[in-house]
């Protein structure tokens, strides 16, 4: 981005808007990992790397049902912050196929991608603790709003509702910045610095993620009406085999 002074406020704004979009505001799905990471990459100057990491993260969360309090996670801030931080630290990925392989450049690229996926997953679970805390705050405010049942003051209720939305935005902005800074600081401690076995295991993560997504979706939908799955499977294999010659 040409104006560096504008970068951090824009990142905070994006973090706030997408954190609100996840559950509180409109739920447009722009806060899903694929579009969120693409937007973060665009802001940091490399939308392709952002999109590729977003693709992997989208497969990780594809089975998460955001119904009620089923999961307390914060995947948006984690995905946004870590994508931005990694790109700022110099991480680049042109294609997914360049991040598969046991050794050499491909192996290291795979391990870096795996490391980022693991970092985002861990950050999402940590951020979930703040989400839980925020829900506790909202419960307190809702009980406070009970006074309006006695005096009929609508403005108090509207104020409490707005406050809840602002706190979600604030959490998103702060956590996004925090994860971006943290990954920038931790970047040099990633693959290459870690023991060879751990680096190799991280390199297997990009291979594990699609299998997890397929397993999760098959588990969600069941196999009672499997014909669309089988048809899609045949089409997918034929297309890719044809493309690869």
């Amino acid at each position: 981005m040409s104006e560096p002074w504008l970068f951090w406020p824009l990142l905070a704004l994006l973090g706030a808007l997408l954190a609100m979009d996840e559950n509180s505001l409109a739920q447009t799905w722009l806060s899903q990992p694929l579009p969120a990471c693409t937007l973060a990459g665009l802001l940091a100057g490399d939308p392709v790397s952002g999109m590729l990491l977003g693709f992997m993260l989208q497969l990780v969360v594809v089975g998460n049902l955001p119904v009620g309090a089923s999961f307390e996670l914060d995947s948006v801030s984690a995905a946004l912050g870590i994508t931005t931080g990694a790109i700022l630290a110099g991480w680049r990925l042109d294609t997914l196929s360049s991040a598969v392989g046991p050794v050499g450049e491909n192996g290291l690229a795979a391990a870096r991608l795996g490391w980022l996926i693991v970092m985002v997953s861990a950050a999402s679970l940590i951020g979930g603790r703040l989400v839980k805390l925020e829900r506790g705050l909202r419960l307190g405010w809702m009980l406070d709003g009970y006074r309006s049942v006695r005096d009929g003051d609508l403005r108090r209720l509207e104020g409490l509702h707005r406050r809840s939305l602002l706190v979600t935005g604030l959490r998103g902005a702060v956590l996004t910045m925090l994860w971006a800074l943290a990954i920038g600081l931790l970047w040099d401690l990633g693959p290459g610095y870690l023991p060879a076995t751990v680096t190799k295991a991280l390199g297997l993560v990009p291979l594990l993620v699609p299998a997890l997504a397929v397993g999760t979706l098959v588990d969600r939908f069941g196999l009672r009406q499997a014909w669309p799955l089988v048809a899609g499977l045949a089409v997918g294999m034929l297309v890719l085999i044809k493309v690869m010659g």
Partner: protein
Amino acid sequence: MKTDVPTSSDQVTAVKLPGPVARQVFRRSLILQASWNDQRMQNLGLLATLAPLLRHLDLDRNQLRQTCRRYYGFFNTNPYLASFVIGGLLRLENDMASGTAVPERMVTGFRDTLARACGSLGDQLFWLGLRPAVMLAACGMAVFWNWQAGLVPVVLFALGQLHFRRRGINLGFSLGPEVVDVISRPLWHRAIAWARRAALALTGILAGFYFAGLLDQVPTLGPGPVIGCLVVGMGLPALVRQKASGESQLLLSLIFALGLALLF
């Protein structure tokens, strides 16, 4: 009390929310879940959404107190279909303010019944059907075309759902309690079935690409890690059975990845 809004005794085609009230209610319906809490879920959000009409109706203090009491209990539904419930409730509130005899039990019964139905339908249609389908389509377009193409399905969904929610409020208000008939149409179940089929087909395509890609990796990686990744990845979700989030499953699979790295 002001009642320039038509009542249910008027022609259905003539029943519309006043423009500024409709716009405010629509904007607020988008943040229905902002104050979601573990105890009463969307209750505060529902009251904040109804507030523009309550203010427009110029209710006295006692009526406002009663309205707040009516809606301060438990309320939870799917956010995309909530607009039908909101529209219907606005109509009932409007009718009550204009002097039509609407029993309070009817209002709460309508709210609870429709919220449950919309919650169930909406969760199946949007979360279990459309979301995986739209996001898998976006993933495919982004990886095999370009990153801009990956945003197209998401933007189309975003615009479509905004239009759908706006229409839901207007329809709910014009039909009042009769909006239940709209929600009970078989069309919804057909839409759910098709969305799930689309999601399954796209899952199949993803699996096809994955298996073909894995076959390509056998000569370089060796069969051990490839088969190991396949077994762990496909087997883990069946073991944890929807109890663990994707992130937790990923971190759990890291243990198996370490085992594979040590073995091969």
